[in-house]
Structure formats: C-alpha cells, structure tokens
C-alpha cells in the first residue's frame, strides 16, 4: 500500500518532534574580547603567574628579535616572527600540564620554546638542517605544521586516543586566522565536537594571512562564532592580554580535562613584524595601523599592571631583560655553530627499513660522496 493509498484512513500525526541537539545560547562567544589586565579581574590574578608570564614575554620578544637577526646573518633560512603575539604564544604553553600536548603552527616556535623545547631544536626546521628538530615525545609537542590547519585533526585524534585509553591528556592546537578558512579546520572542529575530545583550539587572529586582511578571509561576526556551528563553546579574548589569554585557555583546558569537550578560542592580536623576514609588509599595510597596536603591546600591558600593583620594580624589569639577553646570547652562540649533517640521513627514516630501492640509492650517494672526497684529496 502506497502512502497515497492510505489516504482513506489518514489521521494526521504530529510531525516527529524536532529539538536542537544542544542549547545554542551557551555556545555563543563573549560579545567583547575578554580582558584581565587593567580591569578589576586583574586583582584576582595570581601574582606569581603574572610574573612568570612577564618574564616569558620579555624573553619571547627577545627571542623573536634574535631569530630575525639570525636570518640576516644567514643562520636561518627564514623566520616567521611572533613579535606582538607573545602573549598568545606564552600563555598557550603555560596553560598546559606536563602530560598535555601542544600542536603548533609554523609561526609558533615561541610557544614550542616556552613549553620547554630547546630553541635550537625548535629552530631546526627554519635553519634547514632537518625538518622537525626535536623529539615530539620529549615535551609532547607535535612537529611545527607548515600546511595550514592540517595539524588540527591530529590534535583531535591524539586527544581522542588519550581519552579512549583513559589518560588525563588535553591537546591544545594553534592556528591562524587564515587557517580557519581551510577545510581541515572545519573537519577537525566537527570531529572534536562529535567525539567530545579533550582539545582546545586557539586561533590567533593577528589580522593577516600574509597580506590578506581578515575582512577578505571571513564575514563572520568573529572567528569565535564559528564554534556555534560545531556545538562547542566559543571564547573571545584580547590576545595581547597575557593574563586573559592564560585564563581563557586554562578554563578551556580544565573543561576539556573534566570531560566537557572542546572549546574554540579566538585571541585578537596583531602581527607587528612582516609575515617573515622575506616579506615586505609595506606593500599591504600602513605604519599607522602597526603603530596603533604598538600601544597595545602585550609586554606594555603586563608591565603596567605589575608596576601599578607593585609586583615588579625597576630591578625586576632589569632582571627579566637580563635573563632574556642571556637567553638570546646563548641561542646566538649555538646557532652560529654549523650543524653537523650526514647526507646519508636522507635515506634513514623514510621507512622503518629502507626499501631495496632506497638501499641502492643510498649506496649511489655514498659512492658519489666518496668519489668527491677522493677528488678533493687527490
């Protein structure tokens, strides 16, 4: 009997009930970026934390300057600076516990360093002697990801796996405003929400994807609003307010740890330097814009708070700077040494065991190098 033939006996049934799967209201992000420094909330912030953040910011700024200088000296192939974004970089690392995982994007070497990775190892990729310079398992830091947004599903998968194993692990994944346009961003957030994976997505909205301003990247009210469409909460935070970023990320990490699922955090910040040392930012933005942000600098904001509350004095500031100088000098010195390279490494890690084909090629290269060697000696 077709539906139409039932007509004689037709009794209109109520349509199957529809209800939203999640209450959308709590998912909507803050209407204003969350701020702590310079507000009443700052009084509640832990002074020790603020001091740690400060030291790290000062060091981070110095690290960015040093790394940029190393490009000029030919010691780095390229460097994407996070000057101006240090609050996000540092807070991301500090919001995590020992056992947690960080998934950095290519710009985030500072976060990697703040998490404890040796800066020389963090910079290996950009120096060019290898790709990932550090053991990801040592500090639980995934390789720096150059293909944008591709690291986000990795973070989701890792967090999901940890939860399946019953481990207390949260993954924090970093991506830029431009990266939110990639399909992988979408797929990662969706998987995370469906699986309720313990993962936090930090979007550093620094206003640009290389030269492309945010207005050409999205028409959304904010990037945090994207959370709604996945059924996860979105948070909006002043990305230059280290205390605020730390608080929002810590909340999100705590929520994830407690089984509350993923959170999307948009931190509003600004890329003060050019995209990389190879980029000429004057082609696409004026200095007035940059200058306006210099007045909202993360170090200035925190320094002011600390000073006004008497949590730091000139000596403390000088000490932080000095520590940063020492750090930079050490880095400079180590980066000025030529890395020792073995061309045979080309073949060592393609597979667990080189294929017969790779063994042949390795032998070929070895023979070539030996011949070269003889040539120079003879």
């Amino acid at each position, binding site marked *: 009997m077709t539906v139409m033939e039932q007509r004689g006996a037709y009794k209109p049934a109520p349509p199957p009930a529809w209800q939203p799967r999640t209450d959308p209201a709590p998912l909507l992000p803050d209407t204003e970026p969350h701020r702590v420094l310079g507000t009443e909330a700052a009084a509640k912030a832990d002074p020790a934390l603020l001091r740690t953040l400060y030291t790290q910011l000062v060091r981070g700024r110095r690290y960015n300057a040093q790394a940029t200088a190393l490009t000029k000296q030919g010691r780095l192939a390229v460097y994407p600076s996070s000057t101006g974004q240090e609050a996000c970089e540092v807070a991301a690392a500090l919001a995590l516990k020992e056992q947690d995982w960080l998934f950095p994007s290519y710009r985030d070497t500072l976060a990697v360093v703040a998490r404890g990775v040796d800066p020389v190892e963090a910079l290996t990729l950009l120096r060019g002697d*290898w790709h990932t310079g550090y053991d990801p398992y040592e500090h639980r830091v995934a390789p720096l990801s150059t293909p944008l947004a591709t690291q986000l599903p990795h973070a989701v998968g890792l967090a999901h*796996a940890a939860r399946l194993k019953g481990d207390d692990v949260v993954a924090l994944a970093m991506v830029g405003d431009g990266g939110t346009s990639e399909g992988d961003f979408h797929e990662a957030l969706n998987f995370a929400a469906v699986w309720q994976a313990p993962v936090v997505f930090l979007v550093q909205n620094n206003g640009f994807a290389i030269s492309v301003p945010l207005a050409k990247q999205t028409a959304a009210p904010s990037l945090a609003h994207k959370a709604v469409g996945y059924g996860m909460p979105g948070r909006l935070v002043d990305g230059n307010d280290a205390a605020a970023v730390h608080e929002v990320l810590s909340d999100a990490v705590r929520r994830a740890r407690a089984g509350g699922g993923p959170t999307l955090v948009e931190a509003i910040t600004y890329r003060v330097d050019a995209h990389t040392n190879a980029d000429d930012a004057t082609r696409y933005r004026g200095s007035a814009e940059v200058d306006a942000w210099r007045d909202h600098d993360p170090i200035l904001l925190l320094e002011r708070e600390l000073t006004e509350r008497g949590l730091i004095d000139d000596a403390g500031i000088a000490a932080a700077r000095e520590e940063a100088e020492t750090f930079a000098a050490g880095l400079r010195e180590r980066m000025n040494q030529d890395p020792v390279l073995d061309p045979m490494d080309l073949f*060592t890690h393609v*597979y667990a065991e080189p294929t017969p084909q790779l063994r042949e090629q390795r032998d070929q290269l070895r023979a070539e190098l030996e011949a070269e060697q003889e040539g120079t000696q003879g």
Partner: protein
Amino acid sequence: MTTVAVKPATMAQALTRALRDAMAADPAVHVMGEDVGTLGGVFRITDGLAEEFGEDRCTDTPLAEAGILGTAVGMAMYGLRPVVEMQFDAFAYPAFEQLVSHVAKMRNRTRGKMPLPITIRVPYGGGIGGVEHHSDSSEAYYMATPGLHVVTPATVADAYGLLRASIASDDPVVFLEPKRLYWSKDSWNPDEPTQVEPIGRAVVRRTGRSATLITYGPSVQVCLEAAEAARAEGWDLEVVDLRSLVPFDDETVCASVRRTGRAVVVHESGGFGGPGGEIAARITERCFHHLEAPVLRVAGFDVPYPPPMLERHHLPGVDRILDAVARLQWEAES
C-alpha cells in the same frame, strides 16, 4: 587430530577475518571510517567488528575523509594503530594532503621518532558497474609518494596475509582492495590463516618460458586466463603477481624476465604516467641485454574511467593481453 574442511571463502571474508584477528591480537588496532560501524561498511568488510569490539574500536566517523585520516594521524601519534577505510578510491582524494604531507612524511620529518603505523584501506578499480568516481585506479598517485607502502592482494589468502602484515607494519600502508575480487572465492581455511612473508615479495603465480606477464590486484586473474588462452598459440606465459608496488620486488620480476626474455605489464590504471611505465623502465634498466623485445604495457586507456556500459572496452582483457604478447617480436628472435 581432526582435519578441518577447507571451504571456499571470499576475499571479503578473508579481509574481515584479518581485521578481526588483528583487533583481537592488538588492542591498539582501531578501525574507522564512513559506515564501518553499525552497517559494517558498504562492502561489509567491517561486518561485526563494532559489535564484537565496541564502537570505540570500530567507529562510524563523520563524513570527511581528510578528517578521518587526519584524526587517524593523531591517534597513531598516541600509539594506536588505526585502520582507515576510504569508502571508494575517488573518495580518498579529499585526504590527499594529509596523506602526502603528513602520513607519508612524518617518520622522516621526525628522524624516526614519530612513525605512523596507519593502514589505509581503499577499495579500488572497476569492473563492478559503478557510476563515475567509483572505479578509479589511483595507485600511481600513491606509488609516486615516498614514505608509503602500497600493497594490493589478488587472492583470498593474500588478502588475509597482506592485510595482517600491513596492519602490523610500523609504516603507513595504502592497502588497495580490488573491488571486483571482493566476491571472488578460493578454498581458504579461516582457522589456519597464513601470514605472508614481509611486505615486498612478489610471487610467481604461474611459471612459463615464453614471456612474463607482470601484474597485480584485479588483473592477476585476467593474466592467468590470458596465459591459459595463450597455450593455444604456443606461448607458455609466466605470471608474476607483484603484491606490493612499494616496496617493489625487482629481484623476482627481473629473475623472471631474464629467464623469459620478454615481458608485458598489465594493469587497469591508465597507461600514461601509470605504474606500468615505472615497471617497464626498471626492467629495461636492469635486464636490457636479456630482452628480445621492448617491455610492452596493457593498461586502461588514458581517459576518465568510463561509465558502466562502456567499461568492458576500457579494461585490459585476455584479447588485449594476447595482442600485446603477439607484438613481442617473435619473428625477430628466430
């Protein structure tokens, strides 16, 4: 001691059994993909796994291939051994960036610190009357991507053995399942399934003296039929089943060609830029002075995979293989 009756089993059943045994043997093995859970997969290869091992071990994912493979990468980073199902060959393309830029490279990028033991099962090839995007032979893409193993079974026993070996491999494996062989049968004893040798060994499916047919996956059976038919023409053909395209078993292939002096590479994939070019080139490099004729290729045409009603004209069949064998310059020899 009771003897077990060896009943005919299909390749599909052997694959299911391989997944089940792998999951039972190692709790790190997780199966994931579209419809692999409750439904058991559109080809029923994952049938019963969700029931037996729970949905956390055999998971219906959202519909997003890059997301599936990308999250599998993360799971592998944490020590799991994901077995991903791509529903059809062409639907693996959305995951191409994850495959090429991460899956294939992660071990190398991290100097061996972060291997990714992921198996990516891809039903591939034609011959089942599928509409567009359901019959692609995508092995050329995977072959050209260092860091991946590329494996494909042609028999029921190999389906089991090679899938077990792939899942056990500490490297990523693209495991290509010839769709049209899913229902092919063989006498195979599921109670004594044999592991195959490590991935990378080709096998001579039929010995012969006149010429060698080099093939894999869906074309192996066709080549065996061609070899039978060739007897009428007086040709005694050897048939080599590669079983894995990466690593490539030069030894077995070249030993055969050196013996026969003539070779034809046969596959469904398009000829231009397809696997056959590589295979023919490496045979020629290694066996030049043993060759009585150029290595020939019988492949799909260089066209988008045809609609169901035309696919028989596209697929390499017995006649086309025999035509190629006939062109192996037999006169020149004598």
